[in-house]
């Protein structure tokens, strides 16, 4: 398993989130898991090219609302409605697109798919990779998780 695959996603977070108004963005934890555990809001983005796999972004619902609110110029988000879902989908698209640019700088060219966003109480998520790198991120105290599953990692 190649832990350096985490770096492009970290760089994407520290580049994109400040543009949306977050002042402090940091990695809190990095673990390896054999499955994706998620609650609230999960967005899956497919990757193909020199590496292949899936990234699942997970936001506890309250945190998804906070981030969506920030993205919509501080507008209050009391219900995680279509507008908020669209904002979070767009965020994950921006993050993964930026990560793909970072990957290309290291000579790995990848393409990314349209995000699929789901919500649910206790979400079971199965990606094709058998091992997943789980990055716990925090933006101004708001936690979210980036689950990176690269096919072939064991």
């Amino acid at each position: 398993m190649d832990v350096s695959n985490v770096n492009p996603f970290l760089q994407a977070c520290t580049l994109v989130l400040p543009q949306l108004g977050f002042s402090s963005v940091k990695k809190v934890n990095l673990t390896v898991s054999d499955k994706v555990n998620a609650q609230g809001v999960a967005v899956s983005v497919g990757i193909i090219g020199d590496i292949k796999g899936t990234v699942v972004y997970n936001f506890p619902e309250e945190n998804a609302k906070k981030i969506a609110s920030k993205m919509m110029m501080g507008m209050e988000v009391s219900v995680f409605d279509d507008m908020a879902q669209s904002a979070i989908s767009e965020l994950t698209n921006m993050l993964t697109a930026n990560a793909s640019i970072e990957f290309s700088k290291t000579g790995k060219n990848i393409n990314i798919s349209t995000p699929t966003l789901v919500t649910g109480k206790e979400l079971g998520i199965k990606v094709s990779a058998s091992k997943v790198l789980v990055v716990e991120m925090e933006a101004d105290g708001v936690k979210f998780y980036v689950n990176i599953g690269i096919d072939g990692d064991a």
Partner: protein
Amino acid sequence: MPGGVNVKDARIMIVDDSPFSVALIEKMLQTNGLNVVAKATNKTDMINKFTEEKPDFITMDLTMPEINGFDSIKLLRTIDPNFKSIMISSLKDEDLTEESKKLKINGYVQKPVKEDELINTIKNIINFDKNYLELLDEHQAVFQESFVDAVNSMTRTRVSFKEKKEEEIKFSMGFAVAIGIIGTFPGRFFLDMSNKTLTAFTRSITGEESNSSEEKAHFISEFANIVAGNACSLLNLTDKNYKFRLSSPTVFYGEELTVSTANLKTFMIVAETEFGEIIIGTSFSRGE
């Protein structure tokens, strides 16, 4: 070009301060059956002929004495914004292609112009809208056919379809599998069904009485991959530059699961199988 026009019908204008370049580009276009309706080598000429002809497509030189190509495009858009364009210049670097992208200019070709590159660039741009609309129009039938074929060959059972309103299928039935589609028009494919349906479906393949969520997830991933893969292969065969490829499937399951269709129009149809209802959802975007 609302709705898209055929390549041969597209009305093309060439702008270049060098009469030599204009003649060269015109010859390449005409040799390939394209329709040049206007040519201009200076600003006044460009404005007058553009206003008169309202072309669908412009090839624009970048460096010209009175006004540069970028400003020309901006100026012409104030007269009529409904045209597509490419820049043609001996200069090409990251700043220029960035600026060109920012202005939503559809392509960039470097001089000396290579005939193949020029013609392919123009054709792809003109076909883009048309192909996208055709894809939206035609893809559902292709996905349905692949779905039926996969069910038939794997389980020897039949499938019928019924329409359902989008709001009727807001919530997931329990298990959803999504596959990202990458290509000229990126999109996604998903299947949604209840645990009961998936259990019966899985059982019909494995013959086992009970399967774990994990096993069911493996099965439905592979099934979805076959359906999407066959459908995208068929679409790729129609030679419209779709270049579709699939990302790996993601399976979601849980209580009160919903699949968001907020960011992209999703086409949905319900397949009635012997195991229960399975929703087939597809969406495609215009890409960049």
